[in-house]
C-alpha cells in the first residue's frame, strides 16, 4: 500500500527514507523536486504557487503508485506533493521506492516522477522579480519522458 500525501506542509525527506527502509528492503530510490530560481535568468523566480484538483489529485497519485507497484517488486512506495505558495529552494515533491534490489528501486523512482509530471492534476504559477507572474507551460520533454515508460 503506497503512502500518498498532498498537502501544504513541508516533508522531512530523511524521515520518509527511514519509513521506506522496511523489512525486505535492500535499497531505496528517491527523487526530491525543489523550487528552481536560476540566478542567471533574465527574470528570477521569487515564488511558485501550486494549484491542484483536490480529490482527483489523490486518485491520480494512487493510480501512478499502483502502476509502479505492478511493474516492480516494491516493498514500499511514497509520493508526497505540496501545494500553495513556495519559495525558491523549498521542497515541492518527494517520490521514493524501496525494493530488495537497486535496479527496481531506482527505476521505480524515475518512473514515479516522470508519470507524475504528466498524469497528476497540478499547475505551477511563477512570480518574478520584475513584478510579473505567469502560468508555467507544459514541456514536450516531460511528455516524452512519461511516454518512454509505456510498456
Amino acid at each position: 500500500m503506497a503512502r500518498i500525501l498532498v498537502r501544504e506542509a513541508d516533508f522531512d525527506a530523511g524521515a520518509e527514507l527511514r519509513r521506506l527502509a522496511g523489512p525486505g528492503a535492500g535499497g531505496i530510490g528517491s527523487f526530491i523536486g525543489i523550487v528552481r530560481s536560476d540566478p542567471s535568468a533574465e527574470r528570477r523566480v521569487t515564488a511558485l504557487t501550486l494549484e491542484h484538483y483536490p480529490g482527483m489529485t489523490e486518485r491520480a497519485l494512487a493510480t501512478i503508485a499502483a502502476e509502479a507497484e505492478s511493474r516492480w517488486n516494491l516493498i514500499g512506495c511514497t509520493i508526497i506533493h505540496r501545494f500553495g505558495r513556495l519559495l525558491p529552494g523549498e521542497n515541492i515533491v518527494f517520490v521514493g521506492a524501496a525494493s530488495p534490489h537497486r535496479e527496481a528501486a531506482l527505476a521505480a523512482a524515475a518512473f514515479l516522477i516522470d508519470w507524475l509530471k504528466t498524469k497528476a492534476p497540478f499547475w505551477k504559477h511563477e512570480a518574478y522579480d520584475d513584478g510579473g507572474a505567469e502560468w508555467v507551460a507544459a514541456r514536450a520533454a516531460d511528455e516524452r519522458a512519461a511516454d518512454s515508460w509505456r510498456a
Partner: protein
Amino acid sequence: MKLLYFAWLREKLGTSSEEVELPEEVATVAELIDWLQARGPRHAAAFAPENVVRCAVDQEFSTAGASIRHASEVAFFPPVTGG
C-alpha cells in the same frame, strides 16, 4: 452537472466552478465545449480554439470524444505542470 476550472482557465472565467443544466443533445466533452463557447464572451475567450485545454470527467482524464451523459463532475484545465 458541476463544472470545475483550474489555473488560467479559472482566471479567464472568473470562477472555479459552476452548476449547469445541459440540453439533451450535449453528450460528449467536445459538445460541452461547443455549448460553453456559446455561453458568453468569457467562455468564448477561455475555450477559444487556440487555447490548449484538457479535461477530466468524474476525476478521470478524458478526451474530446468522451461521454458526459452520466457524469456528475467535469473539469477543464491547461496541460498539467506538477512535479
